[in-house]
C-alpha cells in the first residue's frame, strides 16, 4: 500500500510536467489545427537552453537566483524561437493538407534534433551544482523528492498562468475565437497569423519549462525528447481540443507510467515505456474522441 501511494504521488508530480507540455500542444492544435510531432524536440531544446544559461549564471550569483533567471531566459528564448519557427516554416503551410503539415513538423523535429546535438553534444548533462537538495521530503510516510515537488509547483503555477491568459486576456480571447470558428474570427478582424504565432510561442515556452524540469529529474540527454513524445498519449486521452483534458490526461499518463514501472516491470520488462501507448490504443477503441474531445460530425 505504501509503495502504491508512493507511486501515485510521484506519478502525479511527473504527470504535471506532461500536462504542462501537452497544454502547449493542445493550444497549437486548437488554434491552428496543426498536429505538432516536434514536441519532444521542443522539450529538449528548452532543457538545453536553460542548462547553458544556468552554467553561465551560476558563476556570478547564488544557485537559486541563477536558476530562476535561467528559467526566465528559457521562456524568453522559447518565445522568440516559437515566433520564428511559425514565421519561417509554418506560415507557408496554412491551408495545405493535414499530412503535409504533420510532415513539416516531423522535418522540424529532425532539424531541431540535429541542431541540439551539434551545439550541445550527445552526452548526458546534469544541472551542476544541484538546484534542489537530494534530501527527500517525508509527508505521512510518503517520501517525495524535492525535485518532484518543485516541478509540480512550477508546472501548476505556469499552467494557471496559461489558463488565465487564455481565459481573461484579449489575446487569449482571440485565440479562443480562432479555435472556435476560424472563418468567423477572421471576418471579425482577428488576425489568424498572430494567433498561430502566439500558439507556437506558448508551446515553445511550456515545452521549455517542461524540458528544464525533466532535465533536473533525470539529466539531459536524448531520452528527454522521447519523454516529450509521451505527451501525445496524454493529449489523446483527454481529447485533442480540450485544455482541461490535457491536464487530466497528463497526470493520468504520469501515474500510469509510474505504476507500470513499479509493478509491471517485473513481469514484462520495458512496460514502463509501452504502458501509456497500450492503454491509449485500447482506450481509443472504446472512446474514439478521448474524454472531452469534440466529436466531428461529417456530412457528405
Amino acid at each position: 500500500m505504501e509503495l502504491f501511494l508512493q507511486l501515485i504521488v510521484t506519478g502525479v508530480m511527473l504527470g504535471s510536467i506532461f500536462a504542462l507540455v501537452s497544454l502547449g500542444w493542445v493550444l497549437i492544435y486548437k488554434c491552428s489545427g496543426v498536429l505538432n510531432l516536434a514536441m519532444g524536440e521542443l522539450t529538449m531544446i528548452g532543457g538545453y537552453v536553460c542548462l547553458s544559461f544556468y552554467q553561465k549564471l551560476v558563476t556570478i550569483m547564488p544557485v537559486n537566483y541563477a536558476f530562476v533567471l535561467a528559467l526566465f531566459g528559457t521562456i524568453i528564448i522559447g518565445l522568440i524561437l516559437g515566433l520564428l519557427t511559425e514565421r519561417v516554416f509554418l506560415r507557408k503551410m496554412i491551408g495545405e493538407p493535414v499530412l503535409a503539415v504533420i510532415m513539416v513538423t516531423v522535418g522540424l523535429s529532425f532539424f531541431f534534433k540535429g541542431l541540439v546535438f551539434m551545439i550541445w553534444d550527445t552526452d548526458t548533462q546534469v544541472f551542476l551544482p544541484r538546484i534542489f537538495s537530494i534530501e527527500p521530503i517525508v509527508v505521512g510516510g510518503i517520501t517525495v523528492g524535492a525535485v518532484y515537488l518543485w516541478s509540480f509547483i512550477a508546472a501548476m503555477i505556469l499552467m494557471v498562468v496559461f489558463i488565465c491568459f487564455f481565459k481573461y486576456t484579449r489575446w487569449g480571447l482571440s485565440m479562443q475565437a480562432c479555435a472556435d470558428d476560424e472563418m468567423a474570427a477572421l471576418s471579425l478582424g482577428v488576425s489568424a497569423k498572430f494567433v498561430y504565432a502566439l500558439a507556437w510561442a506558448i508551446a515553445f515556452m511550456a515545452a521549455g519549462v517542461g524540458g528544464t524540469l525533466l532535465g533536473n529529474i533525470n539529466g539531459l540527454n536524448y531520452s528527454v525528447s522521447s519523454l516529450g513524445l509521451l505527451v501525445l498519449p496524454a493529449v489523446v486521452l483527454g481529447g485533442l481540443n480540450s485544455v482541461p483534458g490535457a491536464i487530466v490526461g497528463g497526470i493520468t499518463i504520469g501515474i500510469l507510467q509510474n505504476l507500470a514501472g513499479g509493478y509491471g516491470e517485473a513481469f514484462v520488462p520495458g512496460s514502463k515505456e509501452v504502458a501509456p501507448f497500450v492503454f491509449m490504443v485500447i482506450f481509443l477503441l472504446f472512446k474514439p474522441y478521448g474524454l472531452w474531445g469534440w466529436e466531428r460530425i461529417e456530412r457528405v
Partner: protein
Amino acid sequence: MSYLPCGTYFESYADDQKWWRTNFIKGKMIFMVLLLVAAPYIVGSQWLSVFYTINYYILAALGVQLLIGYCGQITLGHAAFVAVGGYTSAMMVLFLPWPQFMVDAGLVYPISIVCAGFTAGLWSVLFGLPSARVKGFYLIMTTMAAQWITLRLVITQLSKIGGREQSFPLPPGVIKIGPWVIDSDDKIYYFSVILVLICLIAMGNLLRSKMGRAWIAIRDNDIAAETMGVNIVVYKLLAFFVAGFFAGIAGAFWISALFFVSPENYEWFYSLLWVGIILIGGVGSIQGIVFGSAFVVMVFKLLEMSVLSLSDVLMVSYPEWGWVTTKIIFFKESAFGLAIIFFLIYEPNGLSYRYWQIKNYFNLWPFSYTGK
C-alpha cells in the same frame, strides 16, 4: 492520367485500358528492364549497395503509399511491420526444425518470406482495427503506438531467444533460394530488383481491381463511399493487411542484405522516412515511390560522401578544426529535416508531378497547350 502523343488514339476500350499503350512506352519499359539488369556492369560495384537500399525503401514505402496515398489512412508506424517481417523471416530460417530435403532444395527462405508477409499483415490489421472508428490524428496515434509496442516487444522478448542479446547474425549460406545462395552484392541486387518488380506489378494491378477502386473511394470520401455500398471497415482492414504484407516482404528481403536483424534497423526514424519518401515522390502515385526512394537515398549518399571528404580535408590541413567532424554527422539529420520541409513548401505535389509535366510536354510537343 497522362496525355497521349499527338495523332495516337484508340478504337476499343481494351486498348485504352492497357498498361503500355504505345510502342514507345513498350520500348521504354523494355529498355528500363535491360538497364536494371545491366546496372551492376555500368556503375561498378560500390554503388550496388545504394541501389538495393533504394529497392528496399521502395518495397517498404509501397505499403505506406497504399495506406496514405490510396486509402487515406495516415500511418506513422510502418517500420514496426517491417520489423515483424524481418524477425519472422529470421526466426523461421534460424530456429524452425526444417526437414533436410527442404533445406537442401533452398525452400526455407522463400517460404519464410511469404510467412513474414502474412504475419506482418495480421499484425498490421491488429493496429488497423481502431481505423474502423477513428481517423486522422487519432489513427496516427494508434500507428505510432504500434511502433513503440512492437519495438519494445522485439527488444525485450524476441531478442532474448537463443541466448543472444540484441541482434541475430545469420550464418552465410543460410539464405538461399533454390540453388541460388545469396551472398554477394550483385545477387542481393538482382533479388531486390525481382522483388520490387513483382511487388510493383502486384500493387498496380490491385489498384485497377475492385479492391483498389474501393480504397480510392474511401480516400476521397469515406462516408460517400459507405453510402455507395463499399463496406469501409472491411476495405480499410484489407488495406492495412496488404500494406503490412508488403512491409513484411520488405523486412524479409532486408535480412538477406544485412545478414542480421537487430532492433535499431526499425527505429521510428524509418517510419517517418518512408512517409517522407512518398511525400517527396508524390502522394497517390506508384512512380512517386520510386522517385522518392531514389531521391532520399541519393541525398543521403551524397551528403555522406561530401561529409567524409570534408572531414578528411579538415583532419589533414586544419587539425584544430577537428571538432567540426564530430558535429557534422548531426548536420546530415538536420539537412534531411530541412529538405523535407522545403520540399513540402515549394514542391507540394512531389517529384512525380514534375515528371508528369515533363512527359506531357513531350507528348504534346508541337501543340503543347494543356489547358493549364
